[in-house]
């Protein structure tokens, strides 16, 4: 193991030096004995040991929810168990650095492909590269910094509902656009993890909330126990969320967008179409216009709409296509996938859908 660790000495010193320069205050380089144990305090632990260190680092990350980034350098040598844990760790971005001259390239690739985090990367190149340590340090520091931008907030809506959500505020020179996310009736804000991250990265302020009766927003009961009449007022939650983001100095209150899934799409349209601040509306699967007034507003083209549906959902697809075809040419779009799955489940089958949505919001809301 001593022989295996020796080539990394210069990498180790340049990596830790650069991390400290980048402001990562707590750097601990472990080159000692296995197995490793998680440390009690927050901070960044840099693990650089020889054979099978990759699996140990992966296990460490899989036991500790604070680990947001992991760099596996040169010889991760994953076991099947390690690869399985990578697949089950969607909140940890993994950087794999593999040397093409080593037999561990294969296992490094398997580990990389198992990660579902969209910021996971693989770099393939010689370990002797003198810039490698600094580049890994920059990657780790950026992940640690960008992971802390969302805060949980609570705000009031009509009828005494207290709503909870994750707010990411875009820090930019001038007030910018904001997007509100409305999940489906059986889920909650947990379905928008990746979409929120991608929107924030693109410079949007994002409010991803649990609307009334779902997730953490159950101070007046569960949505499934509400009467139809009580449920209908859920569209008010969109306006309440708009009030929250519009009051932020970082947000231009005339450039608000909302996205909704299935029943959440109905509430999104219900709340947003009557609100003059609405400039963009994304409706994902399971939506059809509630009444003639809503249909007229949708086809007027005044608020651009992105319709997304799956062909086997015939009722929804026909309703959306007909609305789209009646709308005057402009920024309104219609996207149809061949699978009959609900809203966020399409994200699972089509990793390009969330970037497509972000791109459309940017086209409509960013001049």
């Amino acid at each position, binding site marked *: 193991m001593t022989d295996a660790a020796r080539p990394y000495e210069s990498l180790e010193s340049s990596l830790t030096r650069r991390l400290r320069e980048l402001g990562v205050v707590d750097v601990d380089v472990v080159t000692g004995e296995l197995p490793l144990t998680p440390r009690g305090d927050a901070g960044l632990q840099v693990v650089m040991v020889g054979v099978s260190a990759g699996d140990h680092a992966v296990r460490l990350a899989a036991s*500790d*929810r604070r680990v947001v980034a992991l760099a596996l350098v040169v010889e991760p040598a994953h076991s099947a168990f390690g690869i399985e*844990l990578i*697949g*089950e760790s969607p909140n940890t971005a993994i950087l794999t650095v593999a040397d093409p001259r080593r037999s561990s390239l294969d296992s490094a690739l398997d580990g990389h492909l198992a990660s579902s985090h969209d910021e996971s990367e693989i770099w393939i190149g010689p370990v002797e590269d003198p810039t490698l340590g600094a580049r890994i340090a920059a990657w780790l520091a950026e992940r640690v910094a960008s992971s802390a931008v969302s805060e949980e907030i609570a705000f009031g809506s009509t009828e005494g509902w207290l709503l909870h959500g994750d707010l990411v505020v875009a820090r930019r020179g001038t007030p910018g656009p904001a997007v509100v996310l409305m999940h489906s009736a*059986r889920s909650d804000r947990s379905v928008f993890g990746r979409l929120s991250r991608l929107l924030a990265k693109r410079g949007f302020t994002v409010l991803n909330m649990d609307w009334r009766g779902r997730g953490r927003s159950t101070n007046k009961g569960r949505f499934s126990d509400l009467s139809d009449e009580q449920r209908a007022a859920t569209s008010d939650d969109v306006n309440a969320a708009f009030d929250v983001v519009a009051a932020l100095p970082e947000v231009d209150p005339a450039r608000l967008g909302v996205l909704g899934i299935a029943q959440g799409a109905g509430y999104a349209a219900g709340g947003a179409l009557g609100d003059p601040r609405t400039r963009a509306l994304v409706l994902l699967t399971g939506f059809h216009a509630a009444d003639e007034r809503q249909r007229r507003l949708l086809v007027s083209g005044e608020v651009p709409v992105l319709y997304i549906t*799956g062909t086997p*959902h015939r009722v929804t697809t026909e309703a959306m296509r007909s609305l789209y075809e009646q709308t005057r040419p402009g920024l309104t779009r219609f996207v149809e996938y061949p699978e*009959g799955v609900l809203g966020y489940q399409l994200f699972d*089958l089509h990793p390009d859908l969330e970037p497509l949505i972000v791109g459309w919001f940017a086209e409509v809301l960013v001049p």
Partner: protein
Amino acid sequence: MSAATRGGDVEVELVARDGWRLAGLMRLPPDVGRAPGVVLVHGSHHERDAFTYGVGLPELLADRGMASLRFDIRGRGASHHGHDFHRMAALERRAVALDVAAALDHLASSPDVAGDRLGLIGEQDTAAAVVAAAIDPRAAALVLLSPRLPSSALDHLRSRSIPTFGLVSNEDRESLRATATAFLAAPHEHRRLEVFTGLGFGTTMFMARRFEQSAEEPLEEMIADWLAQELQLPDRAGDER
């Protein structure tokens, strides 16, 4: 539990082996007597009410003489306790298997339930925890809705093979592969696999079926009938190996 509580939901609190408290709802069939019981486990984006939109699986099970217990898994709904499932690390999430075990214990210890004729229903990403809990000798039937199963789950299935019913929609290739692999890994005479078209994943298939394929048999009915058949025939229940 007295006969007075039959026919409605009773709130119960389950405590997992590591101390996590879980909010459950139990429903007994109208007839007095020891009934088979079924544990309903939702996927990580859902809550226990995933099984009760529309007609409601607990009601259909009760109609066929079966008790049921559904609950919010750790980090979801009323079992949140400030620790969100989606912020947990991978190994913390795997402890959902302890939640399922606590639900099995609760059902088995009820005087109204036949503790050796228990069924399990799991969906999507928590199906692996359900499969892990199914090594319990009291588990006699397993329903998997769009399961995502890591290879460790296959080891559990191999160690104890019980009647299993898989329901998958054809666009969900990963679940289809997982179910087929599971069936091949652990052969059993009582195997059933239904592959649908255009229904999506997990319990949302229930709604899509009712809305888009209303002339076809609802999935809840299909599941309730299968469980009635597997759990109410004592000679068929349990480990056949």
